């Protein structure tokens, strides 16, 4: 209370200063005196001011120089490259050990192996069963986890600095002496199978699952769907095999927070080396493979019926460039104008003008071996066909006409000014650098990035739109209420302008129900 009263005095002093402060005025703005009393609407007694300075955007202060924090780099004895972002703002440490491989090496018929096996690591160690393992984590107030996605896998921990050593011990124990219990595996397989059933039952999740198989192709490592039968083929023995395919050579460790190189070495040097040694005592490297470019599924408009769906999930897309393409920045700026963020053309059209949806977007996505483009939205059922038409029209218009100067300015300036936010916390810096490492980009990438963004002009964006957006031959996926929308979707692809491969109705697993129009 005392603090409050003192502050009020300060506010009054500040108030008297502001009376004298300079007013910036636009031409049509009334002077402050004229405006006084023109409060209007909000009651007869209260006066809302209408000072001149409100009539134009305030002039910003000088742009601060963007300092991109560089991580400290060193190698552990076992060959792991460590990217350390030391920051002591809060007394915490977060760390991930990343192996450069994942589900891309799942054997045929066992799609889901890598992911399930890393999940099995989280079920406990030889000496700690699942309840004891979770209790230990909770006692340390630490996160300890393991994961695998398409091209990376790894283990991670986060804790207060005072528990760093013990939390790291627990993470290492999980790697060195995993429980690998049959019962734990069966429990997590059963959970995955019912999650799969759940994902097939609702439009949003169903669409998300099928979309990559359509865009990349059902046989592609990024596109293959995990089925019930594949989950059932996963065994503890198979998981032992998977764990032998990850190793420290070529692995990276990303650390952020209140720690030092010396502390990290003390914890990890000896133990990580011992964990991943092969038979000759050398650190083992991870086994990986490089997937081919996307090979989209044959068809133009794929439809899955979910009777009674209140909205339709829509995807419109096609293959896109690689992340290391020289014109990445121009492509990104162009895609921002089309479908990135609230102000994008697609959102302003589908949401703010037509009111078809809560939101709509379009963007390029990148994986290590290639990229894709997709516009997406979840729209009111009766507006499904109209929304597809509008989304395609925005893609075609941008491709044909490019962006407007104010759109380019907004995205270019916005991107440059938003850079400090990307580096604002240790966690963000860590994820930014792990992303660069994933795509094989240099650590000083953001120097060049700033220059390339600043230099991008309308013709660069037009060229990117021409090169990477399509005018036709789209892949379209729609999940929604068949009784309401099926006929209008057939009509959409009847003239072949969206693509010549027709309407294909699928079941929830992506199997063809009715080919052709």
């Amino acid at each position, binding site marked *: 209370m005392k603090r*409050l009263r003192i502050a*009020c005095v300060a506010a009054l002093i*500040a108030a008297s200063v502001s009376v004298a402060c300079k007013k910036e005025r636009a031409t049509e703005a009334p002077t402050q005196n004229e405006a006084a009393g023109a*409060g209007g609407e909000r009651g007869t007694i*209260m*006066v809302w001011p209408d000072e001149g300075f409100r009539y134009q955007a305030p002039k910003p202060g*000088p742009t601060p120089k963007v300092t991109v924090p560089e991580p400290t780099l060193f190698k552990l004895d076992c060959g792991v490259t460590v990217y350390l972002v030391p920051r002591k703002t809060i007394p915490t440490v977060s760390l991930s050990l990343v192996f450069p491989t994942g589900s891309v090496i799942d054997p045929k018929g066992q799609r889901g192996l890598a992911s399930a096996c890393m999940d099995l690591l989280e079920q406990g160690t030889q000496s700690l069963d699942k309840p004891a393992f979770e209790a230990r984590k909770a006692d340390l107030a630490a996160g300890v986890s393991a994961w695998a996605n398409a091209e990376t896998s790894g283990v991670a921990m986060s804790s207060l600095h005072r528990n760093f050593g013990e939390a790291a011990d627990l993470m290492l124990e999980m790697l060195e002496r995993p429980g690998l219990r049959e019962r734990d595996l069966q429990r997590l397989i059963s959970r995955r199978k019912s999650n799969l059933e759940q994902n097939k*039952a609702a439009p949003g999740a169903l669409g998300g699952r099928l979309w990559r198989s359509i865009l990349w192709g059902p046989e592609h490592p990024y596109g293959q769907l995990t089925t019930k039968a594949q989950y059932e083929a996963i065994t503890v023995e198979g998981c032992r095999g998977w764990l032998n395919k990850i190793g420290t050579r070529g692995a990276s460790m990303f650390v952020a927070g209140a720690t030092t190189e010396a502390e990290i070495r003390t914890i990890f040097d000896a133990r990580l080396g011992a964990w991943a040694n092969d038979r000759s005592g050398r650190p083992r490297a991870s086994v990986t493979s490089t997937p081919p470019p996307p090979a989209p599924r044959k068809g133009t408009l794929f439809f899955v019926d979910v009777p009674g769906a209140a909205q339709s999930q829509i995807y419109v897309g096609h293959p896109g460039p690689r992340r290391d393409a020289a014109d990445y920045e121009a492509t990104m700026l162009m895609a921002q104008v089309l479908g990135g963020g609230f102000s994008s053309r697609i959102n302003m059209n589908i949401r703010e*003008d037509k009111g078809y949806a809560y939101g709509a977007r379009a963007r390029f996505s990148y994986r290590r071996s290639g990229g894709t483009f997709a516009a997406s939205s*979840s729209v009111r059922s009766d507006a499904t066909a109209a929304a597809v038409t509008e989304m395609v029209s925005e893609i075609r218009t941008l491709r044909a006409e490019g962006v407007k100067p104010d759109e380019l300015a907004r995205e270019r300036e916005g991107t440059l000014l938003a850079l400090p936010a990307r580096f604002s916390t240790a966690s963000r810096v860590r994820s930014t650098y792990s992303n660069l490492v994933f795509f094989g980009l240099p650590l000083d990438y953001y120097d060049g990035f700033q220059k390339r963004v600043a230099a991008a002009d309308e013709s660069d964006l037009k060229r990117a739109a021409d090169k990477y957006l399509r005018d036709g031959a789209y892949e379209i996926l729609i999940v929604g209420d068949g009784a309401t929308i099926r006929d209008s979707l057939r009509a959409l692809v009847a003239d072949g302008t969206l693509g010549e491969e027709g309407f294909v109705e699928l079941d929830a697993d992506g199997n063809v129900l009715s080919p052709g129009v």
Partner: protein
Amino acid sequence: MTEVPRIEYERYRLRNGMEVILHTDRTVPLVAVDLWYHVGSGNESPGKSGFAHLFEHMMFQGAKHIGADVHFDMLRKVGASSVNGTTNPDRTNYFEVVPSHHIETALWLESDRMGYLLDLLGEKSLNNQRDVVRNERRQRYDNVPYGKERFAVAAALYPEGHPYRYLTIGRHEDIEGATLADVREFFVKWYVPSNATLTLAGDFDLDEGRRLAEKWFGSFPEMPRPTTTPPAPPQLTQTKREVIDDGFARLTRLHYVWPSPKNLGEGEAELEILAQILGSNGWGRLHRLLVIDEELAQGVSAYQIGRGFSGEMHVVVSIKPGRTVEQVEPLVERVLQEIQREPITTTELNRVLNRSESSFVWGLEELLSRAERLQYFNHYTGDPGYASEYIETLRSRTPEGIRDVAARVLGKPRVEIVTRPAPKVAGSDAPKQAAG
């Protein structure tokens, strides 16, 4: 025990009654601008459900000096991140993180919609946002598994006329019925300076922060802070059970809810602790028994939601395919009885305390979450720095006290909702679309 770091701040009021909270941290050139209006869906009138949230959408549609529908556009251009607004039963917040040299851009936008929203208000944007909000409801509630369950819980707990009955998102017909007159009335009553708190957190000089708050908001008139009469807390005279069919759900789900203390009210800390003792992954008593030992459930969660008027204590069990409600319920009951009879162990209690303290520390990393924490405690306790007291409150709870609160809350009648998967009759509560 960890010493939980404090967030240094200064709080004061402008002459018109608007509160200002300033927290400086010059580490990175960013400022989080976070404006709370102390009004939420809990202040809605009967028949106007969903209105506070629809109104929040209208706040992005433009104001006199900034122009129509340019809020996001202007903030994008200056490199802002985390631009949004949210509505809950108690408050509505609007926030953006801007590069510090653009702090005034954010204040310009925020002050304009506080002062001059009605100048640009029109039928067209209201019609559009009614559609957008109804789409938001479809996307988040009507078209997802267990969306129906959320409405069923609220309808069973709160009588007609209680503002929590139709959730913050509201009923389709009420959203559809909102008029321009409703928007004006709501704005005039609730969106007054004396009902708002502005928090600035990040890279600015304190004197400059005070000067800017005064420049953009200080000349607004002083108007009385609106008051509200809390509705009577829900009372269940007997347990209510309802079975609902959900076309999008694939697992049977058992959901118990008890009326409980309001946010930060007497006994709430005990329930927060209890929720973790019951539902924590692996070691939580219900989780361990049902998911790991007996393999009857696929997931268990337990949580206390404290709101301004009253609270809800939830226990939710997702039952494995092939297992039944009849198998699960006696075990749930056993654990619930046990926890009302026997004090928890100090090991369990310390585990929960460690976790709570640690999550407080992690919450300090982002400027916006610091601003939100100051706002949160200021809203509910009048003290932005209440976090330390709250941790102290948690630390001073005892196993016996927790048992007593468990008996007081969980020993009473409850709501029981059973959701059954209904594969062939998928559907939603959404009324049929008008043609066109």
